C-alpha cells in the first residue's frame, strides 16, 4: 500500500505536463487575448488524429507527421477563427465547443479515421526512442520506471513552450495581444488589426493543443475519440483558474497541483463503496473550482490588481 510509488507519480507528472502544454494554449487565448476558446480539445483531436493517420495510413515517419499535424491543426484553428471570431465572446465560445463535438463525432463515425475502432500503431518510432533512452537512463540509475523518457520529453517541451510564450508576451506582439484583451476598439483605433491577432492567437493555441495531443497519444498508445471529450477542456480551465489568470507560470503550477490532487485522491481510503469514492473525488474537484473562482479569482499566481482593474 505505498502512496509513494514511482511509476504512479511519473505517470501523474506526464499527465500534468500534457495538461500544462494544453492549458498554455488556453491561457494565450483566455488570459492574454480575451477569447473564450471552449474547443481546445477539438484542436487536440484534429492534431493527434492527423499525426496518427499520417503515420499509420500514409506511412509517414513520425518526425514528418508531427509537424504536419501541427500545420493541419493550425489550419483548422484559422478556419474556425475566420468563421466565428467576429461573434460576441460567449457566442464564440459556444461555436468552438460545437466544433470540438463535431470533430469528435466525425472521427468516431468516419470510416477513414478507423471509425470507433480508433487508431493504433503510430508510436513504433517513439517506442524505439523510448527504449533507447531507457537504457541511457538506466546507465545513470534512473531506469526504474519505464515512462521516464516520456516524462522528460513532455516537461522539456512544456518548459520550452512556456519560455517561448513568455518571451512572446514581453514582445510588442504580446503587448498588442494584451491591449486587444483590454479593449478591442481602442486597439483598433491605434491601427492594430484585431482580427489578425485573434486568428494568430487561436492558431498558436491549436498548435499547442496538437503538441499536447502528441504526448497524450504516446502516453496511451491508442487514439480513440473519447480521449478528446469537452471535459478535457473543462479540466484545462480548472488548471488555468487554479494557476492564475493571465499567468503562464501559473499554468504549470496549476497543472501539477490539480493533477497531483485528483490522482492523489485515488488513495483516499474511506469506508465507502468504490462508486462513492469515485464520486467524492469529483465533488472535491468541483468544490475547489467553485471556491477558487469565487474567493480567489486571480488564482495562485495571477495578479489581483489586474483582475480588479479589468472587472
Amino acid at each position, binding site marked *: 500500500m505505498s502512496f509513494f510509488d514511482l511509476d504512479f507519480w511519473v505517470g501523474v507528472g506526464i499527465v500534468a505536463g500534457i495538461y500544462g502544454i494544453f492549458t498554455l494554449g488556453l491561457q494565450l487565448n483566455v488570459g492574454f487575448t480575451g477569447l473564450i476558446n471552449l474547443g481546445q480539445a477539438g484542436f487536440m483531436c484534429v492534431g493527434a488524429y492527423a499525426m496518427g493517420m499520417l503515420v499509420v495510413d500514409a506511412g509517414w515517419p513520425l518526425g514528418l507527421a508531427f509537424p504536419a499535424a501541427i500545420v493541419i491543426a493550425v489550419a483548422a484553428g484559422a478556419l474556425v477563427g475566420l468563421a466565428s471570431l467576429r461573434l460576441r465572446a460567449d457566442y464564440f465560445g459556444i461555436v468552438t465547443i460545437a466544433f470540438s463535438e463535431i470533430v469528435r463525432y466525425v472521427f468516431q463515425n468516419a470510416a477513414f479515421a478507423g471509425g470507433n475502432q480508433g487508431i493504433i500503431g503510430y508510436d513504433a518510432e517513439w517506442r524505439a526512442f523510448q527504449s533507447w533512452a531507457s537504457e541511457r537512463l538506466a546507465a545513470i540509475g534512473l531506469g526504474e520506471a519505464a515512462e521516464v523518457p516520456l516524462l522528460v520529453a513532455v516537461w522539456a517541451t512544456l518548459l520550452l513552450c512556456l519560455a517561448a510564450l513568455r518571451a512572446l508576451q514581453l*514582445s*510588442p506582439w504580446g503587448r498588442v495581444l494584451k491591449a486587444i484583451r483590454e479593449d478591442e476598439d481602442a486597439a*483598433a*483605433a*491605434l491601427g492594430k488589426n484585431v482580427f489578425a491577432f485573434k486568428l*494568430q492567437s487561436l492558431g498558436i493555441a491549436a498548435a499547442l493543443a496538437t503538441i499536447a495531443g502528441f504526448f497524450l497519444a504516446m502516453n496511451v498508445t491508442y487514439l480513440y475519440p473519447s480521449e478528446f471529450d469537452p471535459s478535457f477542456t473543462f479540466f484545462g480551465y480548472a488548471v488555468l483558474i487554479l494557476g492564475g489568470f493571465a499567468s503562464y507560470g501559473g499554468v504549470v503550477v496549476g497543472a501539477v497541483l490539480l493533477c497531483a490532487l485528483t490522482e492523489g485522491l485515488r488513495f483516499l481510503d474511506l469506508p465507502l463503496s468504490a462508486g462513492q469514492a469515485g464520486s467524492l473525488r469529483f465533488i472535491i474537484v468541483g468544490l475547489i473550482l467553485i471556491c477558487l473562482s469565487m474567493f480567489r479569482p486571480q488564482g495562485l499566481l495571477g495578479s489581483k490588481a489586474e483582475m480588479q482593474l479589468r472587472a
Partner: protein
Amino acid sequence: MTATRKAGEPILAVSDVTKRFGGLLAVDRATFAVAHGSITALIGPNGAGKTTLLDLVSGYDRPDFGAVRFEGRRVDGLASYRVARRGVVRTFQLTRVFAAMSVRDNMMLGAQRHPGEGLHRLAFSRAAVRRAEAAARERAERLLRAFALDAKASEYAGALSGGQRKLLEFARALMAKPRLVLLDEPMAGVNRALGAKLLDEVERLRREEGMTFLFIEHDMDIVMQRADRVVVMAEGQVVAEGPPEFIRRDQRVIDAYLGRRGNAA
C-alpha cells in the same frame, strides 16, 4: 514630417455623410472640410451628432451614405485600424486606456508599423525590432514628460485620475506621428493649467510637425482663442462653418446653439 500637399486641397473632406440608428437620424448629409495644419473645433449642443461624426470619420462606424476623403482618398468603409494606419488617430469621449497595462505600455502601443508586432519579423529581423522598440521608447518618454506623466510611467494606467487618463490617451495618439488627430473633448476633467499646456503642445505640433487637429469642444473660451476654424452641428446637420469670430455672430449658429439658451456665450 509634412505630407505631400496639393495646393488648397483639404486634408479631410466630408461630403453628404448620413447615419441612421433605427428611427434616429444621427448625422444628416453633413458636409465640411478641414484644411492642412489647421486646428478646427467641432461644436454643437449635446446630441448634435458630433461624436457619431467622429466615429464615421475614424472608421469606428460606417456611414449609410456619403463619402469621407482623407488626403484625397476615400476612407469611409475602411476598418478603423486601416484608417488609423493612414495617419488618422482619434481619442474617445469616454477615455479608453488599457487599464491593466502600464502607462508606458499604453504609450508603446501607439507606435505604428512596429516590426515587433509581426511574428515573422520577431523571429527573423530581431535587430530591426530592437531599433524600432528603442525609437518608440524614446518618443514615448519625451511625450510623457511633455504631458507631466513621466513619473507614472510604470504604474497601471487604471490607477490614473480621470484627467491624467485623458492626457495619456492624447499622448498615446501622438505616438503614431499622425497627420490628422481627432480629439473628443480632450479638455474634459483636465485642470485649467494642464489644459493650457496641452493646447500649447497642440500648437507646437502643428507648427513643427504640420499636424492637423479636429476636436470636439464645449468650452467657448477655448474655441474662440485656440481654434482657427469652427464647424457647428445641430440635430445631425452642419449648420455653419468658418473662423471663430464669424461663427460668434452667425444667426443660424445663435439660433441652433447659442440662442436657444437665451443668453449670449
